[in-house]
């Protein structure tokens, strides 16, 4: 399968369709499985997705950044669908605001560590990364 082969990709949340179209590669992060990249012709696959910075490589070479806040990814019939509870396009996120949010949650978690705060931090990292902020975030998000 050649690198440039296109496949159908859909990123949908209950409230809207974030992306639907052709792409050459999709990178997301699954629960317990780390980052996974899908190319055209990937074997059927179904996984739970943790909050992460998902990248969709479009046919024209552009990369679409999406902050995906948990959900599922399914690959079947040569189509990649990401179903998410909530997601935001990187272009819609204010980078400074996202960075401030990460800093605030990190500070808060230093004082008391709870599952809810940690989950919030994961989301905040995903948003920051998708907005084009400091990377290495997906590693931290986990």
């Amino acid at each position, binding site marked *: 399968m050649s690198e440039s082969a296109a496949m159908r990709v859909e990123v949908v949340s209950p*409230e809207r*369709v974030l992306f639907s179209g052709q792409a050459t590669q999709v990178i997301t992060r699954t629960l*317990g499985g780390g980052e996974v990249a899908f190319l055209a012709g990937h074997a*059927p*696959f179904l*996984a*739970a997705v943790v909050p992460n910075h998902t990248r969709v490589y479009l046919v024209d070479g552009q990369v679409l950044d999406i902050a995906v806040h948990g959900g599922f990814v399914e690959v079947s019939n040569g189509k990649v669908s990401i179903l998410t509870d909530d997601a935001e396009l990187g272009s819609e996120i204010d980078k400074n605001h996202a960075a401030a949010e990460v800093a605030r949650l990190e500070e808060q978690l230093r004082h008391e560590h709870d599952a809810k705060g940690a989950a919030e931090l994961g989301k905040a990292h995903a948003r920051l990364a998708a907005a084009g902020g400091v990377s290495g975030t997906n590693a931290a998000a986990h």
Partner: protein
Amino acid sequence: MAGGQERILRGRIRSVQATKKITRAMELIAASRIVKAQQRVQAAVPYSEQITEVVRDLAAAGGSTDSPLLATRENIQTVCYVPISADRGLCGGYNAGVLRATEGEIKADVEAGREYIIVPVGRKSESYFRFRGYKLDQAFNGFSDQPTYSNAKEIGEHVVSLYASGAVDKVVLVYTRFISAGSQEVVLRPLVPLERDVISGGDGKPGQDGLSADYEFEPSPTAILETLIPRYIEARVYAALLNAAASEHAFRQRAMKSATDNAEELIKSLSRIMNRARQDAITTEIMEIVGGAEALSGGTKEIRLIDLGTFADSDR
């Protein structure tokens, strides 16, 4: 006496006109919101279609289906109803339809010896059932015209926990399905446990390309199903909320349209009565004047005519 009646009628017409302005405004607002609500219903379709597909594929591809949310309980003792109504009134038969359907089902359950509990969504259903002394669980309201996914999530989580704890054996959604701007219908849909025919029927065959007959799962099919099914339920609640919101606007638009029409009709007939009353008053006055003038003039034809002319020139 006659002038007083005219003044009263004038006041009534003014108040009907003011009401008409309000109903007209509500009609226009509802009409514009129908379009938006309809778009939101449409926007939610891809997600719910896909998640249905995933659930089916997973179930068919050997995801073990021993999840409690899939198991139908043999002995149904308590049924949980989730009637979705509006927060506000003035929307014709919209609330009444949902509430009546729910009440009917509850009566049937009580006769069959089953217990029930209501999780009302929307202020109207809460106050209706509370006033009549039905057994209520937690109520959800404040979002009937513009529900969000997080509202659906709260409701979904609540009913799933009710079901999982064993407090209820079945959850039924009662809402108004939006078919088109002209037609909506009240429907009862079982929500939990999921019916077999909802999840079966998936091809479970990942591809026509025949590369492989099985999915790769991460982590495990059971673990995925465990998180997937609550989401699926939330998606269904969300779809129901959106349908209900669109129906609410459609009902309100219709109700307000007929209210505006009625107001117009009322104004028309009131002005007719008012005009007649005024005419009567004028006639009576003229008669009195004529009578008075005749009495004064002692009855010569000439003077009477001259006097009448003078009165016709003045404003009355």
